[in-house]
């Protein structure tokens, strides 16, 4: 591989914007994804990223800001989950499952109202990383700044919450408020990333790099840093691969995030196996 192979994908303006947009998405999703993985909220996160679809679809159909539409859909989804939780004794995952399907279906129904917007469905679900504009990047950067600020402010409350909500409360860490703010962070990461990565594929960045980091490190801080590095690598190398292979940019990045997880998992397994054998040989 020549130097050109690595540099060529980023020579054009739209490709540079794709890289910047993708990297901002990587930062946001890493900061939030660590807590999603630590608190076992992956199913919620998955439902959440699909749940914003009707808001974005309605925004495109009625010609208002898709960011506003996604935010409204996220609020509606959380309120409905809370409603089901308060009114029934069903477990939380049931409410999540109901809203997951319901909101996703509503999004498709809204889009299907107009044939001319059929192409928008692909854009919403799978993103269009090569179509990212400077105004998209500006909006993304503002949202990213808020998400990063919240992540820093909430580090201790979220760490305590990852141990136990009642314990967090006795330590003055306000677990209910912390959880609510984590939902805001998830919403921010999803809304801020859907343009470049798409609502379906943003989940890969939310869970893939943090999960990969979790199996390699000893502390949450290390997990955040490594997750960030893996995310950034995923975006950068995913764009290079998509350029040379002629594949969809967003999907290539999402797939790469998952592939990296399994490669690391298998390598770690092999390393452990090798160490175990070496230990046995020394013992013998």
């Amino acid at each position, binding site marked *: 591989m020549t130097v050109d192979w690595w540099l060529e994908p980023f020579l054009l303006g739209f490709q540079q914007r794709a890289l910047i947009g993708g990297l901002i998405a990587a930062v946001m999703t890493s900061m939030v994804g660590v807590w999603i993985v630590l608190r076992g909220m992956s199913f919620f996160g998955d439902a959440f990223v699909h749940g914003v679809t009707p808001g974005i679809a309605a925004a495109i159909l009625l010609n208002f800001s898709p960011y506003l539409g996604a935010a409204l859909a996220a609020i509606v989804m959380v309120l409905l989950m809370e409603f089901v939780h308060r009114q029934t004794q069903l477990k939380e995952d049931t409410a999540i499952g109901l809203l997951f399907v319901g909101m996703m279906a509503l999004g498709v129904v809204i889009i299907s109202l107009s044939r001319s917007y059929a192409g928008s469905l692909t854009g919403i679900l799978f993103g269009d990383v090569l179509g990212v504009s400077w105004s998209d990047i500006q909006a993304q950067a503002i949202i990213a700044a808020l998400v990063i600020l919240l992540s820093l402010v909430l580090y201790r409350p979220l760490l305590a919450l990852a141990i136990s909500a009642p314990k967090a409360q*006795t330590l003055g860490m306000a677990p209910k408020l912390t959880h609510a703010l984590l939902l805001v962070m998830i919403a921010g990461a999803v809304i801020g990333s859907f343009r470049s990565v798409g609502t379906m594929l943003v989940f890969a960045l939310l869970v893939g790099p943090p999960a990969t980091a979790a199996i390699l490190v000893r502390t949450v801080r290390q997990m955040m840093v490594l997750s960030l590095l893996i995310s950034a690598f995923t975006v950068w190398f995913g764009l290079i691969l998509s350029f040379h292979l002629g594949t969809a940019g967003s999907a290539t990045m999402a797939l790469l995030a998952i592939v990296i997880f399994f490669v690391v998992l298998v390598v770690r397994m092999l390393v452990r196996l090798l160490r175990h054998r070496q230990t046995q040989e020394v013992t013998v």
Partner: protein
Amino acid sequence: MSTPEYSIRTEHLTLAYEDKVAVRDATFQLPWGGVTAIIGPNGSGKSTLLHAIAGTLPPRSGSLSLGGGTRNRVSYVMQTVNVAPGTPITVREVIGMGRYAELGWWRPFRTTDRKRVDAAMERLGITDLAGRHLSELSGGQRQRVYVAQGIVQDHDLLLLDEPLTGLDLVSARVIDEIIHTESAEGCSVLVTTHDLDEARAADNVVLMAGRILAYGPPEQVLTRANLAAAYGLGSLHESGKDFVDDPAHPDEVSDPNPDRSR
């Protein structure tokens, strides 16, 4: 500063989870300092009472007041804290969380805070475990970590929910020493237990069965009549007389450590 008149005082306190009342019309007062054992069958409201004292469960009715100051001087070591295996949080970080109550959301750790954490680990004999994850520890080691977290927090009142249940001999002995050291240093310690020996060794006992059946010095509270009222007739073993059967959970109240010594 003079010693407060009481550590905990309740008047007609009722505690409930949604429509299920766990503690009904409890009125009692515990003196400041010393060790108080809360004893009663499973489901008698012992843990619920600790939750209320720690401020994690508001009273349904009645009142609960703490002597000597505000609730942020209460440290609560819970019975069960289930941390998912593989969670990348080290023993040192878990114990350091005890300082969060003082430091808040973002004030940085000071040298004194780090020294407090080191000292707590040394007292509990877990210094060598500082870099381990909770999932890499035995049950007894984990319990010592949570007790260390509890004593690292600034406190006048230390609540421990069944701290010795199911522990190995070494862990039980270390935690038992902590309980009595904390008391000797002027802290009020509340311990829930199923162990009659442990309750008899306390300065005060609260006997519960969904309400307060009796409270006061052990010899006045742990009478055969009171225990029969709490656990039902025939619950007290004739042989050892050290443990009581819980009719609702007979398997959960067996002696975890028959050789445990104080």
